[in-house]
């Protein structure tokens, strides 16, 4: 039975003993992956967490990780909207110090110091199992107590038709502050399958911006596990613009009282693009809050997915959970799937979720046109306004401007 696992497993067998880190963990992950296969890799197996997203096209793709790159990494990098800040660049899954501007301290790479962390579940998550099996490199960032490490860019570029499995680890000690801007882009028919583990200690503050602008022929899977301690904040924003198929999964445990998480996202899709934003927020301590606003703009035959689960433990009184999914459908063939799940065991909590789906507002369209603005220009104004609001969640003005530019470029590409 082809579950799409065979090629990956063969490669793992071939590399046995040559991959860094815990080989027992890798072989357990390989066993789990052999059993599960890729989600949707066969018609028979259905996983609820992958209800709306099938990786069958990944199973059918023939990745060639060892073939020569078809593009220069420098060329791909030059096209990115980078900030004037340290950047750690991975090209086809391997750290490139020559393209990087290293942060002054607190950095190690997975290839040298492999650390699989403690939060991930390779036995339950097929793509995490695949990553655990084949991970070669990644970034480990550590910010010491009370230190503000500013902005660090984590850049992944792909230059050919391979599959890459970066393994990142980000640890903020007590009272530390860091902004991660994670940018992924490339050229080719590749698979990027990232796993990141994040620890935000007491009173620490991590801002995590993701700009996914992969090639239109690429697959992007990203799984993040985060633990937020007492009074800590994990503030994340994901902008999904690229990839033929993308899945961004974030699992956050609010483990100390007063911890806070923001999992905001905007997905802007056209053609036959598919983007899945899936979150699980565990409220495991009292007085924590979670905020999730996911905005989708869907053109053509594209499909957006938001699955958001909030789990409130018995001990987690005074939980404040909020979830909102908004979709603007620009075509009768576009589709949005939204699945909120609340699992509440405490009795004094505030949890809400909502969803709106709509076309462009007819009154707003008429108002613009009555002022002389032609139909297509009026549509463009209203879509951009919706998107501008989606980016409002990004507090840093410089970063928001970069994201706005990325959206603007996306919009120009659609018009071309």
């Amino acid at each position, binding site marked *: 039975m082809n579950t799409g696992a065979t090629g990956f497993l063969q490669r793992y067998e071939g590399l046995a003993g040559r991959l860094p880190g815990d080989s027992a963990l890798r072989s357990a992950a390989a066993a789990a992956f052999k059993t599960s296969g890729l989600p949707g890799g066969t018609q028979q197996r259905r996983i609820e967490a992958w209800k709306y997203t099938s990786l069958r096209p990944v199973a059918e793709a023939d990745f060639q990780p060892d073939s020569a790159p078809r593009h220069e990494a420098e060329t791909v990098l030059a096209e990115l909207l980078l900030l004037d800040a340290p950047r750690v660049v991975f090209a086809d899954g391997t750290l490139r110090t020559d393209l990087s501007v290293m942060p002054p301290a607190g950095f190690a790479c997975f290839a040298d110091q492999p650390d699989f962390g403690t939060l991930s579940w390779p036995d339950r998550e097929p793509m995490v199992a695949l990553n655990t099996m084949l991970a070669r490199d990644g970034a480990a960032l550590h910010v010491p107590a009370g230190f503000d490490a500013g902005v660090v860019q984590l850049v992944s570029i792909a230059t050919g038709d391979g599959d890459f499995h970066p393994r990142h680890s980000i640890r903020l000690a007590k009272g530390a502050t860091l902004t991660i801007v994670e940018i992924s882009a490339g050229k080719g028919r590749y698979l990027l399958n990232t796993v990141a583990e994040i620890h935000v200690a007491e009173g620490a503050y991590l801002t995590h911006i993701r700009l996914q602008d992969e090639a239109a022929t690429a697959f992007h899977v990203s799984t993040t596990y985060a633990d937020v301690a007492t009074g800590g904040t994990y503030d994340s924003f994901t902008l999904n613009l690229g990839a033929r198929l993308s899945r961004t999964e974030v699992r956050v445990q609010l483990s100390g009282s007063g911890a806070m998480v923001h999992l905001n996202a905007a997905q802007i899709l056209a053609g036959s693009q598919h983007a899945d934003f899936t979150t699980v927020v565990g409220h495991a301590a009292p007085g924590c809050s979670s905020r999730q606003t996911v905005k989708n703009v869907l053109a053509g035959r594209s499909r957006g997915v938001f699955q958001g689960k909030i789990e409130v433990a018995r001990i987690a009184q005074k939980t404040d959970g909020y979830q909102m999914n908004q979709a603007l459908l620009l075509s009768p063939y576009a589709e949005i799937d939204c699945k909120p799940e609340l699992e509440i065991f405490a009795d004094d909590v505030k949890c809400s979720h909502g969803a709106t789906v709509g076309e462009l507002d007819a009154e707003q369209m008429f108002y613009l046109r*009555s002022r002389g603005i032609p139909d297509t220009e009026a549509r463009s104004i209203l879509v951009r306004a919706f998107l501008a*609001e989606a980016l409002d969640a990004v507090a840093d003005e410089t970063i928001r401007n970069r994201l706005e530019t990325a959206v603007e470029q996306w919009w120009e590409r659609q018009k071309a």
Partner: protein
Amino acid sequence: MLEIKGLTASIGDKPILNGVDLTVPPGEVHAIMGPNGAGKSTLGYVLSGREDYTVTGGTVTFNGIDLLDMEPEQRAAAGLFLAFQAPVELPGVNNANFLRTALNAIRRAHGESELDAVQFLKLARAESKRLHMPDDMLKRNVNVGFSGGEKKRNEVLQMAILRPKLAILDETDSGLDIDALKIVADGVNALRGPEFSALVITHHQRLLDYLVPHRVHVLANGRILRSGGPELAKELEKSGYAGMIAEAA
């Protein structure tokens, strides 16, 4: 300027306009008064091309061209402007950018060069000063968080910048205090000239004290019942519409 003949229109199956005949010559300001549900706002929307209404008969020509055959943006480019009774909020759309886009779209349609941001802001600031509007109204999102009076003044600002040949004001006076009313009237009066006409839709005679019309028309049950000079508005203020409608029936 504007010539409406036998105009009938409906929304869904419901007829609203039942044969409107009206001519507004160049340089004239005409008022349309009438009770609620008479079809006043419908007339404004039909003239500006709103799709919810179906024109079932009649003709409208604007400076000799068939208005009903045009898209809303073409009507605007031809010089028509509707000041909305309930101006629409556009979250995420900056007021200055919106106005510049509109002005440049109209300029483009006329084969004129577009204004850059600096040229436009100079013009917009001058106009908003003249209308006693705070500068920050240009920086805010279109009508978002505006008070009722600010929204109406924003309509007048748009009109001042777009410089239409025919302005239709749909109850622009409703909800305004006397100072705001004067500002709106001044805004229209400033545009008056041989090339500018206005159709002022109103419930009350009050606005017409400051914006004196050449003609007043009474619209009821989707038709013009009576037309007259400015004195007709004063008569209506005293006797109301009921008597006139009964008389016409």
